[in-house]
């Protein structure tokens, strides 16, 4: 494993056994690079890589490739997400190559939320491929230097291949096995769905270990920084696949509005501390809704600073 050449800054840290910190970029709806630079400047030095979401929750936003390019421009390492909802195998391969050309050295491939949860529920969903197909195709482009059709690329791209998994959604017994399929397809790291339910996560991890996957894939635990009781209720009632125990919702609701954000940070800090104790969890992935400052507070107060240096500024090329 140590003889492997690092494909990205994130990869280098994972190979070195660092506990890594990634965060999700706020979506923007502007063609102005400043809309991304603003977040890039705040995150630089505080996280190891930043996920550029791909029309998250099936709402269109600035594309993940463009966001990634602007992040790389400002010395922040991007993780480019691609969902199978919006593109077929032809579009996916073009976009992966395009993202690599624009400076992306990490991918994260997923099926994607259904169009029904978005603001264009009348749209035609694509789903030509599933996430496991997308992962294998990214690997074929990189390692075989050919498209799915077998046609040769002039030069293969290089990136670390990531995926997602949800340890909290049924059928729970199948989830570790499904992670195994992703690893077999080519996933090198995974970011989990938002974790609020530690017993379920521990069960998932111990089964993942039983399948012999812990030394084949790096697993980053997803942590959501709640800013209000309303956000907690939103996650529970509106976002499919999220398991947020009632006690956490009640804990947020028990406080007056102005103190809820502080409580959300405390909840996140407790989860980060617990995740760090779980065997096989090699990092955390922090998410929020318009909570970039809260995310930075969690990273700071969890004692995850300073982040290891070493990312070259010019990633593009």
């Amino acid at each position, binding site marked *: *494993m140590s003889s*492997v050449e690092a494909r990205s800054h994130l990869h280098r840290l994972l190979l070195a056994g660092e506990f890594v910190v990634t965060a999700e970029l706020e979506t923007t709806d502007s063609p102005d690079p400043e809309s991304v630079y603003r977040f890039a400047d705040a995150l630089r030095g505080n996280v190891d890589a930043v996920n550029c979401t791909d029309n998250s929750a099936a709402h269109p936003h600035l594309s993940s490739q463009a966001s990634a390019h602007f992040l790389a421009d400002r010395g922040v390492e991007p993780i480019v997400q691609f969902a*199978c*909802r919006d593109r077929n*195998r032809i579009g996916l391969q073009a976009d992966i190559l395009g993202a690599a050309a624009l400076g992306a050295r990490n991918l994260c491939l*997923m*099926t994607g*939320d*259904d169009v*029904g*949860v978005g603001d264009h529920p009348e749209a035609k*969903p694509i*789903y*030509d*491929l*599933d*996430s*496991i*197909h997308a992962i*294998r*195709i990214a*690997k*074929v482009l990189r*390692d*075989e230097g*050919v*498209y*799915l*059709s*077998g046609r040769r690329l002039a030069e293969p791209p290089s990136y670390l291949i990531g995926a*997602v*998994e*949800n340890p909290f*959604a*049924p*059928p729970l*017994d*199948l989830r570790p*096995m*499904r992670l*195994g*399929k992703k690893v*077999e*397809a*080519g996933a*090198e790291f995974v970011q989990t*769905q938002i974790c609020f339910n530690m017993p379920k996560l521990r069960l998932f991890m111990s089964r993942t270990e039983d399948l012999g996957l812990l030394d*084949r*894939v790096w697993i980053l635990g997803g942590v959501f920084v709640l800013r209000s009781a309303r956000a907690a209720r939103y996650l529970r009632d509106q976002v*499919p*696949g999220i*398991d947020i125990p009632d006690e956490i919702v009640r804990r947020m609701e028990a406080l007056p509005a102005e103190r809820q954000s502080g409580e959300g940070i405390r909840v996140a800090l407790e989860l980060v501390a617990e995740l760090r104790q779980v065997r096989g969890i090699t990092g955390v992935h922090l998410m929020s809704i318009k909570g970039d400052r809260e995310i930075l507070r969690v990273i700071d107060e969890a004692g995850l600073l300073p982040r290891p240096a070493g990312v070259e500024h010019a990633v593009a090329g």
Partner: protein
Amino acid sequence: MRMRLDRRPPQTAPEPRGVRKAILLVEKRSKEAIWDCRMCGQCILHSTGLSCPMRCPKNLRNGPCGGVLQNGNCEVVPDHPCVWVQAWKGSRVLPVWRDHMTHVQRPVDWRLQGTASWENLLTGRDRYVPPGWASAQGASHR
């Protein structure tokens, strides 16, 4: 009566007539009635606990998405059980094919949609693997 096997690529396969049409209709009627089959023409029912993966609104052939509701229902059609929750249950009681759930299924060949998977099985037309996909089989990584 001799049936000639048609091994031409799917896009040039002729309209089903005669015996081929009969096979198509028998398969369609019976599998639609029993499994709510969607006639993808490349059946993997035995690998998915006898739950048709094309009934999944995302056409997932390798397992459930992350949006399955806590009650085991589909995120897209919340009053329906997730196809893959049913597939998992179904696979537990299957002999032989029980562990086929772990197989990585290749991408769908959409040219076969609406054709008879029984005929495609006989002719080998459902065995088309994109060359790039085949090149990575069994390759190790990380």
